C-alpha cells in the first residue's frame, strides 16, 4: 500500500497574498509535484512579525494564536519566506514562554514549520526540478532564512538542476539588502542607501536575473534596480523552480517587459 500523501498547510504570507500570488501558486505546484497534499487555511492573515518587531507583544500574540489555530492538524506547515518561517519556527515559542499550554502548541508548530526550499530539499529530499529558465542568475541570501533557518545551499542546489540557468555568486550575498520589514518605513534613507549598495553588487555580477526566497527583500531590490534603470529580472526562487516564469512578468516589471 502506498504511503498516505503528506498533508501540508501552506502559510502564504501577507506579502505574497497581496503582491505576488504567483509565488503562492508556484509553492503549491512544487509541493504537489513532490507528492504533498496542499491546503491553504482561509483564516490565515500574517505571522505577526511587524507587531513583534515593533514591541507590540499583545497584538503579536493575538495574531500568532490565529496561526496556531489555523495550522493545527497538518503534518507540515510550509512558508515561501525565511522571514515569516523564522518568525513561526524561532520566535513563536519565545513569544508564549510564559504560558505553558500555548508554549507547547507553539513548539509543536515550530517543529513542523519549514521554509519552502529547505522543506523541498531537506525534508522531501528533492534533488532536482523539472524546469527551464534561460539566463544568468544571481542569488541573494535573505537574512532570516540564512541565519535563523540555515537556508544557504538548498536553493543553489535546486537551481543548478534548472535547464538553461547559470548561477553567478553574488559578492556580499549574506549582507542585508536594507528591507528589514518596519526598518524601511522607519529609516527609509538608510534603507535606501543599503539597497543601493546591494544593487551595485548585483549589477557587478553581470547577471540578468536576481533570485531570492523572500518577497520583502525582492520588492526592495527590484524597486531599486528598476529606479536605477538596471536591466535585471527579479523573481522569487519558487517561480523559477516551479517553471512558472512564462505566466507572470518579473517583479516590478510591466506586461511588456515579460522576459
Amino acid at each position, binding site marked *: 500500500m502506498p504511503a498516505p500523501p503528506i498533508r501540508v498547510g501552506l502559510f*502564504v504570507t*501577507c506579502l*505574497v*497574498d*497581496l*503582491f*505576488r*500570488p*504567483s509565488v*503562492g501558486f508556484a509553492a503549491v505546484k512544487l509541493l504537489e509535484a513532490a507528492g504533498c497534499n496542499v491546503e*491553504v487555511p*482561509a*483564516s490565515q*492573515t500574517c505571522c*505577526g512579525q*511587524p*507587531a*513583534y*518587531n*515593533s*514591541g507590540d*507583544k499583545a*497584538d503579536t500574540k493575538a*495574531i500568532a494564536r*490565529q496561526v496556531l489555530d489555523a495550522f493545527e492538524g497538518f503534518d507540515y506547515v510550509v512558508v515561501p519566506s525565511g522571514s515569516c518561517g523564522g518568525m513561526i519556527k524561532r520566535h513563536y515559542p*519565545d513569544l508564549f514562554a510564559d504560558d505553558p499550554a500555548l508554549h507547547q502548541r507553539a513548539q509543536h508548530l515550530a517543529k513542523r514549520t519549514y521554509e519552502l526550499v529547505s522543506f523541498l530539499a531537506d525534508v522531501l529530499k528533492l534533488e532536482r526540478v523539472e524546469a527551464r529558465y534561460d539566463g544568468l542568475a544571481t542569488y541573494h541570501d535573505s*537574512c532570516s532564512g540564512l*541565519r535563523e533557518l540555515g537556508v544557504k545551499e538548498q536553493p543553489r542546489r535546486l537551481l543548478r538542476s534548472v535547464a538553461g540557468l547559470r548561477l553567478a555568486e553574488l559578492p556580499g550575498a549574506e*549582507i*542585508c539588502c*536594507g*528591507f*528589514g520589514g518596519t*526598518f*524601511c*518605513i*522607519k*529609516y*527609509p*534613507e*538608510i*534603507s*535606501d*542607501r*543599503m*539597497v*543601493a*549598495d546591494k544593487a551595485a553588487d548585483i549589477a557587478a555580477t553581470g547577471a540578468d536575473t536576481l533570485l531570492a526566497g523572500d518577497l520583502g527583500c525582492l*520588492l526592495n531590490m*527590484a*524597486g*531599486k534596480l*528598476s*529606479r536605477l534603470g538596471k536591466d535585471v529580472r527579479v523573481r522569487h526562487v519558487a517561480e523559477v523552480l516551479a517553471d512558472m516564469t512564462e505566466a507572470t512578468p518579473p*517583479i*516590478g*516589471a*510591466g*506586461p511588456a*517587459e515579460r522576459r
Partner: protein
Amino acid sequence: MQPTSHAFKANAHQALGNANLQKALGLMRSGFPGRRAAALARLPEFEALREQGKALKDHVLENLDFYLETFEQNVIARGGQVHWCRTPQEARETVLAICRRLDAKTVTKGKTMIAEEIALNDYLEQHGVTPVETDLGEYIIQIRKEYPSHIIAPALHLVKEQVAESFRRTHRDLDPDRTLEEAPTLVAEARAVLRQKFLAADVGITGANFCVAETGSTIIVTNEGNGDLTQTLTKAHIVLASLEKVVPTLEDLSTLLRLLARSATGQEFSTYTTLSTGPRRPEDTDGPGEFHVVFLDNGRSAMLGTEFQDMLRCIRCGACMNHCPVYATVGGHAYGWVYPGPMGAVLTPTLVGVDEAGHLPNASTFCGRCESVCPMKIPLPKMMRHWREREFERRLSAATYRYSLRLWAFVASRPPLYRAATALASRLLGWIGRPRGRFRSLPLAGGWTQGRDMPAPEGRSFMSLWAERRKTAP
C-alpha cells in the same frame, strides 16, 4: 559628552552625505569581516571556544560579587587600591583626587572606553590636568576634538588625508614641507611626538580588557605598546574598568583572549598583552608608584537579573559593528554616544536612558549578523526587541506609527475583514500599477519611493484566487 542619540536620523542623514566617512566605511567593509573569517578558518575549535567563553562569562555574572571581592583582596594584597564608583561623577572625582594628591599636571592615557563613558578628558582639563591620548586613533581624534566612532578603531571615520592635515595643524614645530602621504609616516610622526609626552607624564590611565580575580591583575591588549609606556613610567597607574570585566583565573583569561583578537581584528593575538599587578616593588626596575583600579557601575549592576543581563558578557571586540550593515552605512557617530553599532544599540539606552537613545534599538533590520559573529553569543537583536517593547509600552514611538500598527493589527486579527481588505487593495493597486508594473511614487510611501520604485501587485490576492480555484475544482 552630551549624547545626540535622539537625533539619530539627522546624524545619519549627515553621515550619508559625508564622502570621507563613506570612503572610510568602504575600507572597513572590505577589511574586518574578511580578516575575522580567515582567522576563524585557521582555528577549527573556535565554535567550542565560543561556548566555553559564554559559559565562563555567565558563571561570572551569576557570582559577580564574589569575584569582584576576590579581585579587590588580591589587588590590596599586592599593594594596590580599588575604588568603587556608582556614577560617572564619582569616577571622575576619584581620578581627579588621585591626580591632585600627586600634583599631576599631565596624564597619559591608553585606550579606555570607560573614560569616554565618563567624559574624563573634559573634566580633567576643566580642573587643570592635561590628558594626552597615546593610542594613535585616540590621539588623532583628541587633536581633532572628536570622539570615537568605533570601540576598537576610534578614528575609523577618517581617511589618512584628514589625519595628515590634522598633524600639520597640530605639530607646528615640524617641517611644514614634510611628506605625510603614507600611513607609516603618520605613525612615525605620532610616535616621536608621543614619546616626549610619556616621559613628562605624572599619571598614566588605562582601561582594562579584563581583571583577573585570582591575581588582582588587570589586562590590556594593544597593537602599539602605548599602554605599557603609559603605565610603567608614572607615579601612579589608574585603571578604569567596569564591573563585568572580572574573570576568575589566568586560565579563563586565556580563553577569552583567544576569542577577542580573532573576533576584533582577525589577529591570532594582539601585538601586546599587558598584565598589570600592583605598583612597583622595591626589587622592580620600573613600574608605577601607585596602582589604582577604579570600578564604574553606571547602571550595570541593575542589568543583572533582567532581560539585559546577557549584554554584560560583551568583551568589546567590535565584531558586531564590523559586520553591521547599518553601522557600515552611517558610521559610529550617527549613534550619538560612546558605544555605536549593535552593542551600542543595546547598551546605550541602559546607560543614558531609552528616552534619549530610543532610536538606536530601532535602527536595525534584525539581519542577525551581529549575533552570528558575537564571540560571546549575545542575542543582540532579541535585546533590541526588548527595548522596542519597553518603548511601545511607554508610547515613546511616533504616534502615527503606533496608530497605523494598531489599525493593521486590528484588521490582521479578523481574517474575513483582512481577506476583503487585501482583495480590494491588490485589485486597486494592481489596476493602477499594472501598466508599468511599478509605482514611482505612492501616497504614504514617500520614504520608500524617494529612492526606489514600489513594484505593483499582480492584481488579485492569493486568497481570492485560491478560493475561486477551489470552487471550480472538480
